[in-house]
């Protein structure tokens, strides 16, 4: 890679294609990685590399201290009143318990819905557009509900959490230190988003603008591994164009997320060609 050489044209990737890190030397990405200057695919791959590279972990730690100093150097003073607002909001948010030795991997931890997304910032008389931000908050909350649904696939006792929805726990995935996000086009239309934690071996799946299906058919989610497909649940009917979120845990190495159209009762194995196939970099 000669200094100053212009990169080859046409290297822009279609959204959803996961970039391949240079297998030869993933280390070079460490600087971009700690500055979040990477694509989601790069990040997922580097995370994977990092898990088994102690030298890299030490380097990431050191460089993060340097970036924290960059942040400190950019500090501006928060408006008066923000602190007390934040304190007030904190009082309404349940704190996560610590991870203990017997916390099973991939366990979904109970927490309250991210209501703080709705915390109103009282401006100094400046009119603000609330509707879009509320919409974002609602979307976040519905993503939260998904983790819950995913856990419900693993036994009747957690089925309760379906009803409790938002009072439960996407947090494990969303707050995992290695959380990564990927998006991909769905072949028949629409797009899918996967938020995933390698550490927790869990992901949250949502889809947008999937074509409507006749009542007898539904979308079914799969984990496609080297040993074959495992059903990961039926996608609930879309609401305002959004399907999911669903939580899928128990990811294994080599898994891909896949989506097919199946009879509404679900299938044990895919009966139609996949309309989505997304590698997870596991």
């Amino acid at each position, binding site marked *: 890679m000669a200094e100053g050489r212009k990169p080859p044209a046409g290297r822009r990737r279609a959204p959803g294609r996961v970039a391949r890190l240079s297998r030869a030397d993933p280390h070079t990405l460490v*600087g971009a990685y700690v500055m979040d*200057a990477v694509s989601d695919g790069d990040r997922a791959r580097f995370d994977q590399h990092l898990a088994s590279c102690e030298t890299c972990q030490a380097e990431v730690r050191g460089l993060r*201290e340097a970036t924290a100093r960059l*942040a400190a150097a950019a500090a501006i*003073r928060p408006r008066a009143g923000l602190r007390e607002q934040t*304190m007030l909001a904190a009082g309404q948010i349940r*704190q996560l318990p610590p991870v203990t030795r017997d916390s099973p991997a991939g366990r979904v931890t109970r927490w309250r819905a991210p209501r703080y997304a709705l915390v109103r910032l009282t401006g100094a008389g400046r009119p603000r557009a609330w509707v879009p931000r509320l919409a974002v908050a609602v979307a976040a909350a519905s993503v939260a509900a998904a983790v819950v649904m995913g856990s419900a696939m693993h036994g009747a006792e957690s089925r309760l959490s379906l009803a409790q929805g938002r009072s439960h726990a996407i*947090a494990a995935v969303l*707050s995992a230190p290695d959380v990564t996000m990927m998006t991909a086009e769905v072949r028949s239309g629409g797009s899918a988003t996967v938020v995933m934690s390698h550490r927790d071996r869990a992901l949250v799946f949502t889809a947008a603008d999937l074509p409507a299906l006749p009542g007898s058919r539904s979308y079914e989610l799969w984990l496609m591994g080297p040993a074959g497909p495992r059903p990961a649940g039926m996608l609930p009917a879309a609401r305002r164009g959004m399907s999911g979120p669903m939580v899928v845990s128990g990811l294994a190495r080599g898994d891909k997320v896949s989506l097919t159209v199946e009879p509404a009762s679900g299938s044990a194995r895919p009966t139609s060609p996949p309309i989505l196939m997304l590698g997870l970099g596991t």
Partner: protein
Amino acid sequence: MWPRQPSSSACGQADRAISTEYTYVNVSRTGPGAPGAPRETASPGSGGPPGADLGVLIARVARGDEDAFRGVFDHAAGPVLGTVRRILRDPAQSEEVMQEVLLEVWRTAARFDPAAGSGAAWIMTLAHRRAVDRVRSEHSAAQRELRAAVASVDYDEVAEAVEVSLDHERVRRCLTSLTELQREAVTLAYYRGYTYREVAELLGVAVGTIKTRMRDGLIRLRDCLGVE
């Protein structure tokens, strides 16, 4: 990325430096940093003694200590807000993200692992990631720019408190010790939220070169800050 491992001595050193108290100087159109301009030190609140280590405060936050959370706010809100503002531009949205980050700290404090890095690094990593995620969501881009444009009209009229501290000076000086390409790569990525591909495009430099400059630039920055 907070593997449970003992931190190296270099990290420990950086950690101490980061816990420096922030001093705010009120920079307004009327009195930009003139001698005798109003000077105020961010109070650590009742959250702890002045200069209390952020990591210690976070450990107390994990136990539900609201005073400690106030202290965390006093230490971290300024850097978080400033960084997020640089990336998002929109003042209102930046405040919102700042609040989200602090509340995330409150919520997940028990997951903070001091062996994996300083409290400041933990919080700033959360903050930067969140700002970048938001700025990259194309969905909100148009609205954000519109709102920023509208907001900037009156925002410029508002006196803005810019944090000036030893840290600030030191970082500025260390940035000047980088090569120009290193410095541009680092600041475009960190303060503007660009990906390395975007930075490469902007600077007309090969992608691989940019990746390398980001890494060796940060290493030089780390070493420069570490020795002081």
